[in-house]
């Protein structure tokens, strides 16, 4: 078990979400940065989609009630009883130790996975919290001070006593995630259904920087910048939408659907962010400037494959290194 000693608002239990129910109006939910969640789980021997804690407001303090392997990935600066842990790191906590997580300067969300996963009742196949629907996770609520969370039965993982970590994906795959000269976050996307209805304004969508406004949350990011508008008004029926879809409401400032995306909407779609870049947007803080870069399906597939290879490499190598360290410790 773990106890939430202290937490900010809107921190929740998340896994990889509950796809398959959008047709009845149930949003997918799930981690805003599924890559960080996956790696955190792999570091503690869990399945990639085990439930973990997503933190977006800080500081957070968690007390371990028994010896527990845990991992912290994504953003956040973690300390175990005052000892600073490197980023993207797993460690074993003793009973009574306190994990403190403070915000990082560069990333918005931290993920803490625990050996065995957070054991809350699955709803529609997922332990993710849907705050808008008030179900899933911690009885549909954000984490609160004093909450005690049960952990599942641990897999037979081999954890080195001194802990270990992984090279963060943006460092390991730096060449695949180029940076803009002006520091703007480059987010690759494909033109979507109504792209061409924006005429010349569609080109400005790609060419100009946008800023993530304060009206942004797990449901969507509202961007601020020079408005773009349709060349002429169109009547549209509502259509199904998914995370990553970029819509443009009449005001002209785009909205990016995120993990708690609406299941349907009627605003015209100008672009769809490729999945390989969506996790980076999930880590972008309010106020971040970003620029959309037109991608191809082939590029999106190549990036998906590179990320899958990184995950596979982490899974295999972490297991091998764990076994090697255990063997050496026993000599």
């Amino acid at each position: 078990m773990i106890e939430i000693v202290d937490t900010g608002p809107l921190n929740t239990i998340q896994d990889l979400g509950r796809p398959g129910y959008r047709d009845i109006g149930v949003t997918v939910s799930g981690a805003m940065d599924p890559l960080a969640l996956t790696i955190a789980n792999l570091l503690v021997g869990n399945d990639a989609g085990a439930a973990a804690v997503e933190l977006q407001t800080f500081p957070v303090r968690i007390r371990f009630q028994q010896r527990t392997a845990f991992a912290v990935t994504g953003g956040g600066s973690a300390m175990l009883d005052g000892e600073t842990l490197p980023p993207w790191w797993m460690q074993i906590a003793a009973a009574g130790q306190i994990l403190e997580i403070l915000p990082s300067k560069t990333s918005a969300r931290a993920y803490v996975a625990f050996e065995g996963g957070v054991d809350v009742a699955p709803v529609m196949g997922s332990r993710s919290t849907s705050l808008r629907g008030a179900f899933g996770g911690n009885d549909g609520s954000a984490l609160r001070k004093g909450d005690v969370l049960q952990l599942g039965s641990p897999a037979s993982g081999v954890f080195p006593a001194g802990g270990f970590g992984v090279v963060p994906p943006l460092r390991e795959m730096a060449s695949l995630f180029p940076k803009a000269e002006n520091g703007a976050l480059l987010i690759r996307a494909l033109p979507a259904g109504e792209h061409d209805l924006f005429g010349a304004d569609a080109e400005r969508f790609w060419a100009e920087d946008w800023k993530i406004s304060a009206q942004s949350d797990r449901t969507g990011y509202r961007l601020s910048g020079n408005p773009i508008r349709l060349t002429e008004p169109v009547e549209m029926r509502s259509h199904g939408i998914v995370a990553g879809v970029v819509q443009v409401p009449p005001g002209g400032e785009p909205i990016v659907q995120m993990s708690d995306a609406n299941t349907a909407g009627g605003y015209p779609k100008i672009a769809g962010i490729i999945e390989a870049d969506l996790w980076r947007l999930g880590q972008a803080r309010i106020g971040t400037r970003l620029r959309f870069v037109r991608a191809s399906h082939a590029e999106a597939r190549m990036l998906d494959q590179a990320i899958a290879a990184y995950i596979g490499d982490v899974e295999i190598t972490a297991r091998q290194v764990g076994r090697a360290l255990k063997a050496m410790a026993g000599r």
Partner: protein
Amino acid sequence: MSKLDFTDPALLDALAAALTAAGVDGIEIEQSSRRLRLVVEGKSTRATMRLEAGPASAANIITALMAGIFDLETIPSELPRTVRAGDILACLRVGPVLVPVRASRACMVTRCLVDRQALVGFGDPLFDIEAHP
């Protein structure tokens, strides 16, 4: 099984050729009294060999607990530096995995003995240390 003689040049040539054919950069073989580290250099089958008389004295150095790429990016720090027992001084990188190099006792870390991103082997000296003042 007969014991291999790792001082035999023919055996070393055969090992180097096998490593090159397999696309492997090096291998470490530890016996009870000595350790062999064979590193293939470039595209040729030339190899260097180092025989050591067992683990080096741990009195004034911190050594590598396994083979890996020496990584100072994860824990950047200036030397000399005073550390507590258990503090992480650097990491050894194995693929995407980072294994910490920790101080075995409270001490002053005075000098780093290997280059950044160098391939190090088990037991290689990494840091000079002095007893905590």
